[in-house]
């Protein structure tokens, strides 16, 4: 049978993949997608915990409401992020991470 650890492990791996993506890829949009993946991995852990931690018989909906809020925030964040990427593209004509070094020390 499936245990809580399995779910957490899946979430962990998903998070790791997201992290690797963010570090490896040079295309900002793909980085952004990996970011979303990391976020959803976190949501998975929350839902797993809410299911496995029963409050007087029913799953713990506080965790799930937190997931609800993260999803909304993520949505807003994606909107703003993509707007920035568009503005960036208009300035640099490229979405490559290497071109964006203005804030160098």
């Amino acid at each position: 049978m499936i245990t809580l650890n399995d779910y957490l492990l899946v979430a962990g791996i998903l998070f790791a993949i997201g992290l690797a993506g963010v570090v490896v890829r040079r295309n900002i949009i793909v980085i952004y997608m990996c970011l979303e993946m990391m976020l959803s991995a976190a949501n998975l852990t929350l839902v797993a915990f809410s299911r496995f931690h029963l409050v007087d018989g029913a799953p713990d909906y506080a965790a799930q409401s937190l997931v609800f809020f993260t999803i909304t925030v993520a949505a807003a964040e994606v909107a703003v992020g993509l707007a920035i990427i568009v503005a960036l593209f208009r300035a640099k004509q490229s979405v490559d991470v290497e071109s964006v070094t203005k804030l160098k020390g």
Partner: protein
Amino acid sequence: MTSYNAASVVLLLPLLSAFFILVLGRTVGTTVSKMISVGSAALCFVVSVATLGVTNDSGVLVSFLNVGKLHADIGFIIDQQSRGMLFIVTFIGLLVHVYSLGYMKEDKAQSRYFGSLSMFMFSMTGIVLADNFAMMFMFWELVGLSSYLLIGHWFEKPEACEASKKAFLTNRIGDFGFMIGILTLWAASNGELGFAQLRESLSGGSVSGPLHSAPAWVLTVAAIGIFMGAVGKSAQAPLHVWLPDAMEGPTPVSALIHAATMVAAGVYMLVRVSFVIAASETAMHLIAGVGGFTALFAALMAVQQNDIKRILAYSTLSQLGYMVMAVGLQAGEAGMFHLYTHAFFKALLFLGSGAVIYACHHEQDIWKMGGLSKKTPITFLTFVIGTAALMGIPGLSGFFSKEEILGAAYHDCGWLFTAAAFTALLTSFYMSRCVIVAFFGKARSENADHAHEAPLIMTAPLMLLSIFAIASGYGFFSDRLQAMVPHAEHGEGHYLVMGVSIAAVVIGAGLAFFLYNGKDKDPLNIKLFANRFYIDEIYAVIVKVFQDRLAWIVSGLESIFADGLVARLPAAIACRVGKTARAIQSGHLQGYTFALGAGLILAIYLVVQVLPKH
């Protein structure tokens, strides 16, 4: 006239006149300042003659420093030694003041000259009256200052400035040793500075006698330190270089300071604190040795000098060597007696040479003079009397005092006696050489040719001094003038000593007459003596290497180490760290995210693995 008033008048009057001249000299004009200075010298002389009869006394004039253990005050001692010295200082001081009125008539800075002279009188009386080491040291340096001012009177002449600087610095080196001696005594005697207290503490009489129980090396260090002060001031062997150069100053100055009084201060001080020197055997031997060596050494150099004032300067060095030797041989009274008689005839000789130079229009080289006996009879006569006294011709004052010292040397150790006798021979040799070349024969330059006798104001002191040069040796005068005549317990060698000294005089004079009569050029030509054993050059090299070169090296090192290590190095490190830190902000986003991830993993590792263990 109690001794307290006398001491305070003699001490403070010259100071007031010097201060007055310093402050108002310019406004009040040179004549008034001259009158004030000479007046104060005369008044001091009268007062010191008055004190000749006063009983021994000592006391405190004004308390200089009174902090915790330290009680340094300006005091005075009136005893036979200080009365005699006071008489010499004020008498010769007065004569020099009067003489200077004539000699310095056309000098343009006369008020400054007389101000410095009064300053000197103040400092010299301070040394004579001093009753503790602090006061002695203070006036020691003030005398150094006044000799600096007087030697450097004609400050346009570069030689005069160099000479005055050299004099002050050599004295200061002597004072360095002097202060070490004083400090050692101060530490060993647990805070005593007064001569009376120190003598008591040394004798171990009273309970407060820690000095008595001080180890021998402490007393030796103290005695040698104090002797170094005398070496600096009385121009003994190592530190004698400044006296011949001090002849750059006006001649009356040389007469007063560099013949009679200031240079004698060293011997006076040694006799005053003889109980400290007596306490250490090695110090006594050292002092006697240095004294004997200086006497011989200076006499050798005097033989080949051509400048009349330098001959007298070296003879002063030599006579001082005698006195210091006497002190070293525990014959302080003989030293003081010689100092006493020497003051008169040496001052006479210097003033005489001043008159000669005045007559030959500032010509100082004896080989350009000649035949002055006919042109300046009074100067010639007084100069010969002075020379006779200096050479030690029997019947004159020099003979008695020098013979005492030779006697002391004879009783103590053989080779010192032979050195002293040989120096006596050399003394009569170079003095007769000087007289023969300068006064006999025919004039060797047109200056000497139409030389004219010095005015009365200059010859009067000469005549007065020649009387004293003759008479001061005899009991009648010396008792009246409180000279410290050693009680003549003539030991068995007395006549031998007498004979040897007379023989030395005769041989010296004869040799000089034989060599120099009628000669126009110096037959002897000993380069070594003429160039003063090249000591000045050696000292110049020492100063150049050990001071200027070392200073250059040290200042280089200092700017590298002190400035570099403490200031520039940290600054450089800060810049270096700053530059490397900048590299972290490289602008590569991937670098940043990687650092982010690495930080995350490290944090997890710490939280999960490390934290629970502690």
